[in-house]
């Protein structure tokens, strides 16, 4: 079952809701709506499901409604219309007490603008969530200190937020949310003020945490690399509407429209594309059946200079070059002996990892599935072509 589900969720800031809705249905631009009605469309008709244990990333232009959407989830903003289901329950219909329980136990939020309490020290900020749950002082202090330690801020625990740098403040916000150990983490550009080193640490920690504790994470990011790195699925928003939802690969390979494509341009494809995306169909010889003659005949027919040797189960046995096939025929030996070593890569290996392997390997690479069965081959030309594709776009 979906952990979180949104149905026809709409938020309009300002008055004249009906007029705005009509204009939205006619796809009027936001600036027109603003001028005519004074109202701003935050989110319009969002439908979405986030699965349990998923890291779901929301991306989109600045002002496209990401923060509004995430705030609707814990009802910091009241929706104009639509429903929000959490574990099948409609949050938008909850009374105050139920909502409070949800916020305490199920969701924690990291704010885009940090949202730290200025009159509380770093430590006191971090333990805030636990404090309101009524956890005894010693216990919550311990948890908070642990969270601060993970954020590398333990030394600063008695300082006040205004004494910290931007990134440090963001990490306090993060520690505060994590200390709570909620089922769902709502993270609004939680890493935007972090430098790459700390950011990578934080990403790793998040992934690890998620793997260990199976939290559902909804994450707003502007960094597609980050989204691809940590996100199971990605939603892309534009002008308050969700224009595409899919895995990183879906979005890279089948962008719903030019807007989404533009978003992916600056991306280092080698970090996204996998062997499976760029492999070509293998031309194989079943060494359990075929002899050198059959193999050579196949090569001629397919106009290739080598074949991937597989057994009956399509397990890769090696590579058979034309040269070796000829030699085998001359020597009358079996194909087994004529094979050269063939490097295999799993089909999910990233292109970036493939590049270094293929550079060292004389033969094409065999791409195998989870059962180690051959599904395709990678050839150098194709790899370069894929890399070129990426950059092509930018050069255009």
């Amino acid at each position: 079952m979906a952990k979180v589900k949104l149905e026809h969720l709409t938020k309009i800031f300002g008055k004249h809701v009906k007029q705005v809705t009509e204009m939205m249905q006619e796809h009027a631009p936001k600036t027109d709506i603003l001028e005519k009605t004074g109202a701003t469309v935050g989110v319009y008709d969002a439908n979405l499901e986030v699965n349990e244990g998923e890291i779901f990333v929301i991306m989109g232009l600045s002002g496209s409604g990401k923060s509004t959407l995430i705030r609707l989830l814990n009802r910091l903003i009241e929706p104009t219309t639509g429903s929000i289901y959490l574990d099948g329950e409609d949050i938008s219909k909850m009374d105050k007490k139920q909502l409070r329980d949800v916020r305490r136990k199920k969701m924690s939020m990291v704010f885009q603008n940090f949202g730290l309490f200025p009159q509380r020290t770093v430590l006191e900020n971090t333990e805030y969530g636990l404090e309101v749950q009524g956890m005894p002082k010693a216990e919550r202090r311990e948890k908070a200190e642990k969270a601060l330690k993970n954020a590398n801020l333990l030394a600063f625990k008695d300082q006040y937020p205004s004494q910290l740098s931007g990134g440090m403040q963001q990490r306090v916000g993060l520690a505060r949310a994590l200390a709570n150990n909620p089922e769902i983490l709502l993270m609004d550009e939680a890493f935007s003020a972090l430098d790459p080193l700390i950011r990578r640490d934080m990403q790793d920690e998040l992934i690890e945490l998620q793997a260990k504790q199976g939290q559902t994470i909804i994450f707003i990011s502007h960094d597609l690399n980050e989204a691809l790195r940590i996100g199971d699925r990605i939603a892309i928003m534009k002008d308050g509407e969700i224009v595409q939802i899919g895995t990183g690969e879906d979005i890279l390979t089948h962008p719903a429209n030019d807007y989404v494509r533009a978003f992916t341009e600056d991306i280092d494809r080698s970090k996204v594309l996998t062997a499976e995306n760029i492999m070509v169909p293998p031309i194989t010889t079943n060494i359990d059946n075929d002899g050198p003659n059959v193999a050579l005949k196949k090569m001629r027919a397919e106009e290739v200079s080598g074949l991937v040797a597989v057994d009956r189960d399509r397990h890769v046995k090696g590579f058979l070059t034309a040269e070796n096939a000829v030699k085998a025929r001359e020597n009358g030996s079996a194909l087994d002996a004529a094979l050269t070593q063939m490097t295999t890569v799993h089909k999910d290996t990233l292109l970036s990892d493939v590049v270094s392997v293929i550079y060292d390997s004389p033969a094409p690479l065999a791409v195998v599935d989870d059962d180690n069965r051959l599904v395709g081959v990678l050839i150098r030309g194709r790899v370069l072509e894929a890399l070129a594709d990426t950059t092509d776009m930018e050069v255009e």
Partner: protein
Amino acid sequence: MFAVAKIPLAGWVQSLVDWMTKNWAGFFNAIQTGGQHAMDALTNVFTAVPPLLLIVALTIYAIIVSGKKWGFPLITFLGLLLLWNQGLWNDLMQTTTLVLVSSVISILIGIPLGIWMSKSDRVAKVVQPILDFMQTMPGFVYLIPAVAFFGIGVVPGVFASLIFSLPPTVRFTNLGIRQVPKEMEEAADSYGSTPWQKLVKVELPISKPSILAGVNQTIMLALSMVVIASMVGAPGLGQGVLSALQHADVGNGFVNGLGLVILAIIIDRFTEYLNVDPIQKLANKPTGRFKNWKKWVGWITTIALIGGTGFAAVQAHQKEQASVNIVYVEWDSEVASTNVLAEAMRDHGYNVKITPLDNAVMWQSVAQGQADASISAWLPNTHKAQYDKYHKQIDFLGANLKGARLGLVVPKYMTNVNSITDLDGQANKTITGIEPGAGVTAAAEKTVKDYTNLNGWKVQTSSTGAMTTALQKAYSAKKPIIITGWSPHWMFQKYDLKYLKDPKGTMGSSENITTMARKGLKQDKPDVYRVLKKFQWDKDDMEKVMLDIQAGKTPQQAADKWIKENPKKVDAWFAK
């Protein structure tokens, strides 16, 4: 204008007040009695602390709190010392009680109300005009119902202070909470804070500066109401101001007012230090070995304070036996006599409270049994009107001082002048009088008119203070001066003076100062009654005490001195 008649609003209000007075008497009485007792107890605690100890302790607290050696601690020390020096210590403590109680009640009501306002626009809409009402409806207006409800004393004083001083706390709590940034509210909400948690952990700490500023205003306004409160009998510095102003005595009014100001500054500073930015506090946090000295010194001071107070209280307690409430008029003579009697009774173990009141109120309070007794009835002339009105409800115990008189007075060195008829142009044909409205002034004017030799003379009215100043000036220069005098008065002890004979009797005949008690005192407190009945002394005695007071002693000190010097007389009062 409209043909509509004037709406009889005034009448309605009057009726409402009457109705409430009649029907809610029990409720009001309970408040009056309870409040009075509670506040008396508090004042007793304050006055039980030896003044010097309290001054030093407050100075030490000031050092600890402000972290400074000069500035604020010095102001605290010198200011309190000055008030002590001016003999205002008891008044100061009583005012402190009044202000503390009304401030605390204001805070207890005001902060929750302000919070409620900040949470609901509708409440704000309703409360705001009420606050306007409370601050602008003149205190005089609701003081009259207050007296009708609560009688005289400190309770209606607190009531009046409360009404006037509550609004700033409410307003600025409301403002402060409404100014809390939206992000902070959101952050608190997002972690599932209950409204209460949000309030206590986020909103109040963030809005603390505004709230404290409001509380500070409340305290200031409570202090500013002290004088008004004393108009309905609340004791303390306010009474000093009022009594000074009855003589247009700016100087003494100022001194008493200064007491209020010093109290204000000290309270203001102590509350201000509650409001230090936490970051600043962090920066000033001492490091190293002595970082806890403040805590230690603070505790030691507190212990010393409690110890000293306890010791003083135990000593005081041993003497406590009965409780007597003696009222008096704020005249030099009555201050002297009442204090002497009170001190003497205290020495004999009575628990005596003395209350200065307006002349009419004094009589009323004895007549209605709110006070036990007074030794300040000038009869038969001066208090005639009151006597006529109340004499049936009062028990008169006879004169405690005989031969009080008014008259024209000159220094003895004016040997040629012994009678009013001897006057023929001395001192620029001027008689130096006191306030325009005073009885003695009126008598002097009559005298000028009736004596033919005083044709062309004038009575130069001024004030009691100015008159004595003029006397002193003339006396030291041995210049002629004629004043409107009365005795008992300290001037007869300080200077060699004589009354001029008054053949026409225009300056009035002689009077006795009489003791009176409420009906029933004889049954309730026979001991006290006996002492009151036996209490008497003479003009010389009284004038000695008055002179000491005039020279700068507090009334109590002067009384104690006199008691020490006249053991026999005093013993006679307490003989069985």
